[in-house]
């Protein structure tokens, strides 16, 4: 029995040390990013390049997902509240659900897979094939060449994509609710949407998406940048990046709801 306790303590100790060391290294990377901001001639053009890949490259899949999410939300609301609540509730619920939760969270989770995996695989491959060492050996900073453009592109483009997702989600929900299966009038839908809408909701959605954007770009960049052990390491880094970014999104979602939304 004492051995089991000792083993458990060791396990917890090791895990804590590892976690603290990762947090320390991530903080160091962030510090290095701030120190490299002066090299704007390097990172500005590369940020535009990355922003194009993140933004334009993800637009179709983000709009498709948001479209389905809006439609399904409208259908399920109609199904659950049929004959028990006024029909304009559907308008309010679709708009609120899309803006407050589904738009930012679904888009971020989607990009955690699409962009997070890509960043981790790219940087991981560059690390194990010594391309990052080569950059350093040429007196160039890998932080300003590789990390800052990716992190900025992810952080800035996610809010833009979320705005698109919100718009498409609401339009799709409206179309399904109003002209589709539920047969709710435009006037009822708009009345419901306006009745429950607060401008704070839109800000909340955007602030959330900035935080999610930072998580889905910074975490995979860190994981990819610190990859070890060849092709297997790149595979492991890619998986770890997607899982860590997704968990970060869910964690931030809970924390930001607590901090930003007025209670009561």
């Amino acid at each position, binding site marked *: 029995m004492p051995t089991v306790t000792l083993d458990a303590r060791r396990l917890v100790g090791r895990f804590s040390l590892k976690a603290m060391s990762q947090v320390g290294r991530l903080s160091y990377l962030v510090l290095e990013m701030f120190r490299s901001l002066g090299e704007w001639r390097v990172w500005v053009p590369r940020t535009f390049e990355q922003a194009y890949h993140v933004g334009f490259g993800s637009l179709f899949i983000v709009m498709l997902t948001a479209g389905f999410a809006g439609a399904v939300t409208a259908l399920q609301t109609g199904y659950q509240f049929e004959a028990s609540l006024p029909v304009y509730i559907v308008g309010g619920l679709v708009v609120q659900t899309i803006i407050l939760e589904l738009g930012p969270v679904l888009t971020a989770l989607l990009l955690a897979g699409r962009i997070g995996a890509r960043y981790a695989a790219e940087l991981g491959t560059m690390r194990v094939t010594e391309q990052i060492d080569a950059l350093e050996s040429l*007196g160039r900073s890998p932080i300003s060449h590789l990390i800052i453009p990716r992190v900025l592109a992810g952080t800035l483009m996610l809010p833009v994509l979320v705005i698109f997702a919100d718009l498409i989600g609401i339009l799709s929900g409206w179309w399904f609710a109003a002209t589709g299966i539920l047969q709710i009038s435009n006037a009822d839908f708009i009345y419901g949407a306006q009745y429950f809408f607060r401008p704070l909701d839109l800000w909340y959605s955007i602030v959330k998406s900035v935080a999610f954007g930072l998580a889905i770009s910074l975490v995979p960049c860190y994981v990819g940048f610190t990859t070890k052990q060849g092709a297997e390491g790149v595979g492991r880094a890619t998986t770890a990046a997607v899982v860590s970014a997704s968990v970060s999104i869910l964690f931030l979602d809970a924390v930001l709801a607590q901090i930003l939304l007025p209670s009561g």
Partner: protein
Amino acid sequence: MIKLSDVHKRFGELVVLDGVDFDVNQGETVALLGPSGVGKSVLLKHINGLIHPDAGEVYVDGLSVPHLQRKPLSMLRSRIGYVFQFGALFDSMSVYENVQLGITDEECAADRSYCRSRVAQCLDLVNLPHQTAEKYPADLSGGMKKRVGIARAIAGQPTYLLYDEPTSGLDPVNADIIDKLVTKLRDSLGVTSVVVSHDVRGSFRVADRIALLKDAQIRAMGTPEEIRASTDDAVLEFFERDFGTFLHEPG
């Protein structure tokens, strides 16, 4: 001048360098030999600060590399060309862009016509046709990748060149081309070079001095003649086991 003094490095439990002393004089070419996985590349990466020692000193031009701040380290690195074992070419960039990235002087790098002529010059020096500039690393053979790696390393007109296994994985003809290139660059550019290699014959051809890294220490260092005349068991074991009677061949 490069000088490593009592350098120690370990990765976890594995002791890679245990009190290594190593020096390279100006204009000299030193070949660093040793069994696989002994830490030759680790030693090489200490010279340009890609790896920091756990203890000991690393000096290049009198500057203590591990203690340099970002900016001076970056400036020092721009004077040290590094040829990576597998080329380490940026695969998303063309050969032209790869070599251009080696131009470390900011003013020169901003001048397009200088870049064009410098890239062409570097490709000439490594015996690659100018059409190669348009290609991507994935379209090149192993030998061509190594030569592009060398072209990138010399593009910034370095005073030092560090070669990490420049001939590994190449057939004898290509290995010979690279060996001649190392000599040609030393003669034409006057660079100080360190060549990490497995290729004993090639090393004896190109190097002014040879060092043997074994059991985490420099076991022998001297001119090819001195190494040939060595009676150290470690030297005899390394050279004679793998290369027969090579040590006793006439120089």
